[in-house]
């Protein structure tokens, strides 16, 4: 089975092709084909996973064909299956299949659902290519593929201007990151003469510290773009304009974690430079706090979850930035997050489904009575994300916080406490979301008749809820050891003692979670105002995304516009001026020249005679002179 890695992405690719080509003819069976394709990939991935376990070393590579053979640049269409890839393949196909199943119910009444499933399978294909590649060009191929699928799906309801704009915003901000990523690939080729993972990591030690720093920063820029990290986080909340399954699969569970994958995959680059690690950690910390703070102020159920995603990926960046054993922690948190965030997004979708697409949490309330299954499954996700002990979030987030305390110098305090503060805020805003949605008094708009979603939608919720609960036990299995070969070479980093005892950190984490949750319950347990009320500076800033959008507008968009205008001016007056001036010169000259064409035969005859006389004179001058 391991010799046929290509099957993993070929099946969804074939399905996507069929779906996109058949269009409305596939209205009946199309969605189910779309579900079956990733499901088959999941089964194949599971088989490969178990086969991989018996290998030693646990890695297999295949070069299918020569992809870009140009002079020194020899890129093969190569695939690699190692523990890290295996984990991602299972996450993508497993959670992906469940969300596909959910989407069958969610999109049941959409005219273009076949196209939707075609794009969805295209996304699965690209994401699998991204994680299966054995070199950075393959990674980039999948990277752009998921970017395309993301754009197509965010603006799936493209007749809504907001959706079209959100798609463009996502695409453009991703371009910034992608530019960094492709520059990183160029840099690798220029300095290391290869883009293969293995060879890059072998030779990366030969780079100077500055080159390595630049390489790492460029990779980080790419990762930030894709994962919605500071300073490129602004597109992710807007991406919620897409259908909810898209938000769940692409913008919560899988695609946005691609940045974490890149950093984890490139761990030899990042581990080798402490400055780089400090930057990654800072990015992660800033993002997680940013996400939490803004998440507290948002009223749109999907946007709260989106900012929560931003914040949770911040935790993952914090993890991968810390290096050493924290790589595996970040990946496991990524897995658990994939479950509970997908679960909550789908739960939100279920709520919207029952509430006529209402998204304002101020207009929910008391839904626990009407949507029992959604309520229960959402509760699992909620408890998981805020880190209540028996659930997954506790087991995956708490070690990252603990690791943040283990940096060995004063920064331990800074990042550790920031992570703890993030946990407190996470508990606060997630509880606010949960309470306002499912408890407290009804604040519905008129004519609402909430009802539970059909089984095709709640069955995936149940599976994901189970995942949310049990994913934490991965920590107690061999997954950490399982992932370690991938992060080999990082074992020799010095171990520092945590600045606080480990048990204290655990207790503090749980205490903060309970504190935040209790605080939120106390404030919002009795509901809230139907409209946002005027608030203080901090809340207003948070409602405005901490003015990051305004910052982008002033610092990047406005000068961009000016530059464009200036260029248009130069083009109109300068370039066109030269062209038009030349044309005017020729035209004017011709206009004057044509006056010679008087229409008078005698004038023409005169010039003929002049010519004749000149020729004659010349002839005689030559003959006689």
């Amino acid at each position, binding site marked *: 089975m391991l010799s046929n890695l290509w099957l993993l992405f070929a099946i969804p690719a074939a399905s996507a092709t069929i779906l996109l080509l058949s269009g409305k003819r596939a209205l009946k069976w199309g969605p189910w084909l779309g579900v079956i394709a990733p499901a088959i990939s999941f089964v194949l991935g599971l088989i490969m996973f178990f086969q991989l376990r018996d290998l030693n070393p646990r890695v297999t590579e295949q070069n299918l064909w020569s992809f870009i053979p140009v002079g020194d640049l020899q890129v093969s269409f190569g695939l690699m299956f190692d523990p890290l890839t295996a984990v991602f393949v299972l996450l993508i196909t497993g959670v992906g299949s469940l969300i596909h199943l959910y989407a069958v119910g969610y999109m049941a009444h959409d005219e273009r659902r076949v196209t939707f499933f075609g794009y969805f399978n295209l996304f699965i294909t690209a994401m699998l290519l991204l994680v299966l590649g054995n070199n950075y060009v393959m990674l980039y191929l999948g990277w752009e593929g998921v970017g395309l699928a993301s754009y197509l799906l965010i603006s799936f309801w493209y007749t809504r201007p907001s959706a079209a704009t959100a798609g463009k915003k996502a695409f453009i901000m991703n371009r910034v990151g992608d530019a960094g990523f492709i520059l990183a690939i160029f840099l690798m080729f220029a300095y290391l003469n290869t883009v293969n993972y293995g060879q890059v990591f072998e030779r990366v030690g030969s780079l100077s510290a500055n080159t390595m720093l630049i390489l790492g920063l460029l990779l980080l820029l790419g990762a930030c773009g894709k994962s919605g990290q500071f300073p490129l986080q602004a597109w992710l909340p807007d991406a919620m304009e897409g259908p909810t399954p898209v938000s769940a699969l692409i913008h919560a569970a899988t695609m946005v974690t691609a940045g974490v994958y890149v950093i984890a995959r490139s761990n030899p680059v990042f581990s080798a430079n402490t400055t780089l690690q400090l930057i990654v950690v800072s990015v992660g910390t800033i993002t997680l706090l940013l996400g939490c703070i803004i998440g507290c102020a948002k009223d749109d159920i999907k946007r709260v979850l989106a900012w929560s995603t931003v914040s949770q990926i911040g935790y993952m960046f914090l993890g991968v930035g810390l290096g050493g054993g924290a790589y595996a922690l970040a990946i496991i948190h990524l897995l658990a997050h994939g479950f509970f965030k997908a679960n909550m997004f789908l739960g939100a979708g279920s709520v919207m489904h029952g509430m006529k697409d209402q998204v304002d949490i101020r207009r929910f309330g008391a839904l626990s009575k009407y949507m029992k299954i959604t309520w229960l499954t959402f509760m699992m996700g909620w408890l998981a994300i805020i880190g209540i002990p028996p659930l997954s979030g506790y087991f995956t987030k708490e070690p990252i916080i603990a690791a943040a305390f283990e940096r060995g110098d004063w920064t331990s305090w800074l990042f550790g406490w920031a992570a703890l503060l993030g946990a407190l805020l996470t508990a606060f805003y997630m509880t606010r979301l949960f309470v306002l949605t499912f408890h407290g008094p009804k604040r519905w708009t008129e004519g609402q008749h909430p009802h539970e979603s059909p089984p095709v939608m709640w069955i995936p919720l149940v599976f994901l809820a189970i995942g949310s609960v049990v994913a934490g036990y991965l920590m107690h299995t061999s997954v950490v050891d399982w992932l370690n070969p991938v992060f080999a070479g990082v074992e020799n980093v010095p171990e520092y003692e945590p600045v606080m005892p480990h048990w204290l950190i655990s207790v503090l984490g749980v205490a903060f979670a309970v504190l935040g949750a209790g605080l939120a319950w106390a404030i919002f347990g009795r509901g809230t105002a139907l409209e946002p009320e005027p608030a203080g500076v901090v809340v207003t800033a948070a409602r405005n995304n901490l003015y990051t959008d305004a910052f982008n507008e002033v610092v990047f968009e406005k000068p961009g516009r000016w530059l464009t205008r200036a260029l248009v001016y130069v083009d109109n007056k300068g370039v066109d001026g030269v062209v038009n001036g030349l044309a005017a010169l020729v035209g004017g000259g011709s206009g004057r020249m044509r006056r010679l064409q*008087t229409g*008078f035969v*005698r*004038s023409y005859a*005169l010039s003929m*005679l*002049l010519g*004749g*006389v000149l020729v*004659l*004179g010349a*002839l*005689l001058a030559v*003959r*006689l002179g």
Partner: protein
Amino acid sequence: MIDVSWGEQVVFYILAPIAVIGALGMVMARNAVHSALWLVLTMLSLGVFYIVQAGPFIGMVQIIVYTGAIMMLFLFVLMLVGRDASDSVIETLRGQKVAAIALGVGLGVLLGTGLYRGTVDLTPVGLAEANKNGNVQGLASLIFTKYVWAFEVTSALLISAAVGAMILAHVERRKDERIGQAAMMKERFLPGNYPGPKPGPGVYATSNSVATPAKLPDGNPAQRSISPILPLRELEPAEKADKHTLTGGHQS
């Protein structure tokens, strides 16, 4: 070096100025008919030159065909077009006249000196040898041997020109523009139209010119009796005066 005979020299010295005068007269005459007549003068002189240069056939052709036929054709067309036969003096194109004359003089000087200097050293052979069987026979033997192809092509040229002239001169009326006899008669008898034949011009003992109008019973000239393109010619007092034809022409 053949001798240019004394007689030929006399002819040249007399006719060359006449030819130049004729040419200048043609260019300068205001009236086109006068131009044509001046040109005839030049052409006749040239005809004589051809004859004295041992080309009697070409000389006669010049006089008969050119001067006789082609120039008559010119006059014929002039009569057809004739009403504005004389040019106005005002030159519309600025500087055209000065430039033309300057260039013409330049051309003449260059051409004359160039040709003269190019040929003055040649020894004229004379046509005595070529014409020993007679000029016409010499030409004929060349035309029908060496130049027979050009000669035949000439026939094609002439027939094309004839057909072309006919096509150009022909005015085709569309069928619906043709007027039937009935319509023509209706038009003729419409009120306001005089159906009878128009009166002829006046015929008098002293003048029967087509420009002299006939007289109406009241003694006024009948405008209809002359062509509208002709200026009315009034009878002079001498012509109007009583000629005493009834009294035998004697005045007392």
